[in-house]
């Protein structure tokens, strides 16, 4: 006895199917509403976010400290390097530096270090440099290949000599993400990476993109390149660098502008 073809199914069967379909649709709608409620539940999202620690731990085993990001050949360089986030800071102090072509720019490096330092762009250019053609991966999903030249962050750290308690390198940037007026709440972009990432060979403070001085839209005069992490970790418009033992007390407490907005601190995924 074969199963009757679909169009001859018993009315009872059809009714059951109808019921089931209704139940499935209702369950689906309820599940969706439930997911949205959970997405607004802070402790639930905090639980989801814990997966980044597992990912980071596993990734640092399979791709240990010295593992290199892929470098490309000059023919892979994108004709236009896409810029994202702040494209032209409105902050007055930045505008003043920009007007003088960053001649008065000084990178201040301090915090938990033996010998705080301050360097002009020319002084940074005179330091050892590294050039790398790498792929920039935005958290949004796109990628762009560009050629960066800059001073290895490890070199700068060697000059200032971090103290034993220093665990993170914090980047303070010129660009306000919100209202740039001094009376408004501080919304300057900031980022942080750990010392392991900071001393990686490919972690540089870039002053050149594709053999030209870094354009304003890409973070002039100085931006960080952290090649094994996503774009938002690569602070543009770097004003100062600070070595800190922790970042829980800084701004939103999550270690960066986008981190305070809910993104993972670990940007290797």
């Amino acid at each position: 006895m074969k199963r009757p073809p679909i169009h001859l199914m018993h009315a009872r069967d059809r009714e059951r199917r109808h019921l089931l379909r209704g139940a499935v649709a209702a369950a689906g709608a309820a599940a969706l509403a439930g997911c949205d409620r959970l997405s607004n539940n802070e402790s639930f999202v905090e639980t989801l976010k814990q997966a980044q620690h597992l990912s980071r731990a596993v990734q640092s085993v399979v791709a240990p400290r010295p593992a290199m990001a892929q470098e490309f050949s000059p023919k892979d360089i994108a004709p236009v390097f896409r810029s994202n986030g702040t494209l032209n800071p409105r902050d007055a102090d930045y505008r003043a530096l920009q007007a003088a072509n960053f001649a008065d720019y000084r990178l201040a490096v301090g915090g938990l270090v033996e010998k705080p330092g301050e360097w002009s762009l020319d002084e940074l250019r005179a330091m050892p440099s590294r050039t790398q053609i790498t792929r920039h991966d935005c958290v949004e999903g796109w990628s762009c290949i560009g050629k960066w030249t800059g001073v290895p962050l490890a070199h700068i750290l060697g000059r200032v000599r971090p103290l034993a308690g220093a665990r993170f390198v914090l980047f303070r940037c010129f660009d306000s993400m919100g209202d740039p007026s001094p009376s408004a709440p501080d919304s300057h972009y900031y980022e942080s990476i750990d010392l392991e990432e900071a001393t990686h060979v490919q972690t540089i403070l870039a002053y050149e993109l594709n053999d030209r001085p870094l354009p304003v839209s890409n973070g002039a005069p100085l931006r960080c390149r952290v090649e094994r992490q996503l774009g938002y970790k690569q602070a543009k418009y770097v004003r100062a660098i600070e070595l800190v033992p922790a970042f829980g007390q800084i701004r939103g407490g999550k270690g960066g502008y986008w981190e305070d907005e809910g993104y993972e601190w670990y940007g290797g995924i």
Partner: protein
Amino acid sequence: MDPAPAPASASSIERRFYRHRLPVRVMHWINVACLAILLMSGLGIFNAHPALYWGRDSTFAQPWVVLWAKRTPNGPVGRTRIGSTEFDTTGVLGLSKADGVLTARAFPAWATIPGPQSLATARHWHFFFAWIFVVNGLCYLLWTIFSRHLVRDLVPTRDELARIGRSFVDHLLFRHAAGEAAKRYNVLQSLTYLVVIFVLLPLVVLAGLAMSPRVDSVLTGWVELLGGRQSARTLHFLAAFGLLAFVLVHVFEVFVAGVWNEMRSMITGWYVLPAGTASRPMAASVAMPDEESGAHAPTAAVPKEVQP
């Protein structure tokens, strides 16, 4: 047409058959939850940059897939372009209602987790459940190999492969196996499962991993094997839609084959073999379960020769 036998009749109890062992059932339902969440949170992530490219980086002027909202004199419309063909997809893709308001968004709110666009939150969902999905998948793989589920139930025999054309026709006519034949996956079914397990799932995981800049540094340059990171993103998306297509057909077949019986077998393990002579050739000789096997006995907790 003969009416289908009442599920509670004596004959159906005799034809009860322990079809899915507990680990398969548990892993199946974990998989259902993970796949649904991963697909929908994945669409939420995709919405942050709703375009796909082929190659190492994004050729922004030439995505091969792009979804967007366009202003027209008659109001905004949702557009989708695949290759060089453009479609009006207003209401679903590119432009759809979120909380009653027409919103420019690639995939609609009902298809994403969370519903309201949030890349950060979608990523948290995605990466948390990706771990459960991968661990569950690895457990399944190990179990399926060591329990011999793979060789015994999933790999089709030479005879079954030879009759693949017949299986095609059976599927097209919605003819389903009965009696002894219903104890085994049919050949199209097992081949589909093998493609899902050994092609689509590894591909979706691998292409997903290839999008992680840190994982890309494991063996520097390995992402080139997938055609580069943007190709990997494309492959991740295609594999996910391949899985979605599988799920749709799978659920459709469950409905066609008898939703109560199929659901019961994936929840309790027990399946009632449809009575009668099957149209499937492999069941030609036996229409009813073998009295000796004991596999159909409702009291047997785990028969010695457990079938799929």
